């Protein structure tokens, strides 16, 4: 019951926010310089042709009326058509969203493994060699650009050592995509038992996900490390230590209490990466949401841009709801 009330409260705040975001995006997109009708008609088009295109695209109406039309469509579940892929925006997004989701999920997995590993090493042996590596890593990870790191890893692992496939797309050309279930190749190929596709898509996702994982792992390390530092000083850990519990056990108990902090960081990293993986998607020609929105912006593809913003906002709402629910499960002290 409490959860229902909590959900209601969240959604009540969210709906006006979503509406405002849709409206602002709508106006902002139309403030982009250049006329999409002219772009589509090409450089040699007659003015009459541009005018008729504008009429077809609804661009000759006042902005508020266009907004009204768009909202009416939206309530009927129609996000409009992309002028450049000539698909329904919903279809376009449905293809690309799983690609990005798969990439950022793998990245976060890497980031958590890297970050938590270093944090535990730091807590276990603060002066050890791994702890020193961790400190240097923590300083450097946030300083270097992710797209640059990706390129350098491509150079070392693909160009020089040839241990990963070429950084183009999610599968090799001659490997057929697994049957569409979730749209995430790793999961689909596992579900259908298609091991060839699984191995190949893992090889392709490895490098971009590792890049993002290395860049964002530092945040997990710092978060886990500082929470552990606080908890190690707490009374019950002192008590455990005075009872003579082995160090491993103590670290284990300490770590259990950092899980909420890790979960929170997972949440913020997810919502950041949905739009923030754009550059890595470009480096690896990933064909996800990030690349879609970049092309849409360059082409002034109004409906596509608008659709992306709606999906991103909804995604972060759902995400934070899930995170809050997980938090309640992992940290019984939390009560909404």
């Amino acid at each position, binding site marked *: 019951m409490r959860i229902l009330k909590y959900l209601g409260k969240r959604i009540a705040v969210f709906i006006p926010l979503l509406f405002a975001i849709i409206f602002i995006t709508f106006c902002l997109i139309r403030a982009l310089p250049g006329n999409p009708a002219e772009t589509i008609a090409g450089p040699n088009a007659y003015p009459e042709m541009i005018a008729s295109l504008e009429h077809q695209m609804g661009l000759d109406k006042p902005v508020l009326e266009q907004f009204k039309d768009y909202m009416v469509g939206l309530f009927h579940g129609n996000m409009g058509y992309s002028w450049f892929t000539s698909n329904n925006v919903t279809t376009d997004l449905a293809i690309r969203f799983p690609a990005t989701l798969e990439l950022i999920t793998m990245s976060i997995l890497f980031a958590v493994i890297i970050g938590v590993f270093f944090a535990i090493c730091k807590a276990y042996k603060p002066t050890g060699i791994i702890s020193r590596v961790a400190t240097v890593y923590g300083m450097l990870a946030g300083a270097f650009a992710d*797209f640059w790191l990706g390129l350098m890893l491509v150079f070392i692992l693909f160009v020089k050592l040839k241990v990963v496939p070429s950084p183009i797309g999610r599968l090799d050309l001659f490997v057929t995509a697994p049957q569409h279930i979730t749209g995430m190749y790793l999961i689909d190929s596992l579900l259908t038992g298609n091991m060839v596709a699984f191995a190949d898509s893992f090889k392709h996702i490895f490098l971009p996900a590792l890049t993002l994982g290395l860049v964002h792992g530092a945040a997990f390390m710092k978060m886990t490390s500082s929470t552990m530092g606080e908890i190690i000083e707490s009374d019950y850990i002192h008590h455990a230590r005075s009872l003579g519990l082995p160090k491993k056990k103590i670290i284990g108990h300490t770590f259990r209490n950092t899980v909420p902090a890790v979960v929170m960081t997972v949440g913020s990293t997810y919502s950041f990466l949905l739009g923030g993986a*754009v550059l890595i998607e470009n480096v690896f020609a990933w064909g996800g949401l990030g690349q879609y929105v970049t092309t849409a912006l360059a082409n002034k593809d109004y409906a596509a841009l608008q659709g992306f913003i709606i999906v991103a906002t909804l995604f972060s709402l759902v995400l934070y709801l899930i995170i809050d629910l997980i938090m309640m499960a992992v940290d019984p002290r939390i009560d909404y």
Partner: protein
Amino acid sequence: MKDAIYLLKKERSARVGLIIITIVIMLGLLAPIIAPYDPVTADGRASRLAPCAEHLFGTDSNGMDIFSRCIYAIRIDVVIGVVGTMLSLLIGIPLGLVAGYYEGFIGELILRLADLLQAFPAFILAMALVAATGQDVKNIIYVIAFLNSPIYIRYVRAEVISLKQRSYIEACHAAGMSDVNIMFRQLLPNSLRPAMIQASINIGGAILLTAGLSFIGAGVPVPTPEWGSMISTGANMIITGQWWAAFFPGISIGITVLGFALTADFIRLYLNPERK
């Protein structure tokens, strides 16, 4: 001042940070003297040269000297980072003060606007705003200032809310000081610490954002020497094994951003009220 020197002697990372920033700024200021070549002159006969004595960092596919371009790029990237962050402090601090001091309707309104701004995917919004205002250095600075201001609003507001309960502020009220005076004379100097630490980190963030925008062609237009667009030129040469065109600008970004991050540590220690 004495404190600062003492801290610098004691903290190695703070020392390294300040040294990096000093060197980077000097290089940027002295670029015309240090850079051996003009940063935007392409020499077709000297394209794709590996690092050598004449071209320390090699040349890119257009035959421009990468070392010279990396040095000149400081004038673009660091200026965008520093000026953009200063401007966002100028927007964020007063709004944060007001939002903290008048917690009612005005404070709530400012906070909700900050929420709204932060609800957008940041990189995409930056791309759209730069595209809408036109791709040049000035507009990128404005966009960065605008997008980063919510952070300072929040930090300053949080400090003000806790400070204004203190008795010295009550004393100011009792003495009949005006609200403006209390806000800017009494609350402002005491509420800046978190914002100043964040500012140094954000300068690095702004440099990374600028480079990212330019990397996909949505930031500083070519051939202006800028680290991100240089990496983008170099990206096409990676597959053929010519790593230097992308490597050096990326290293320049990394060192500079690291310098500002370490300086943030220094600021945190220096402004720590418990230090003495």
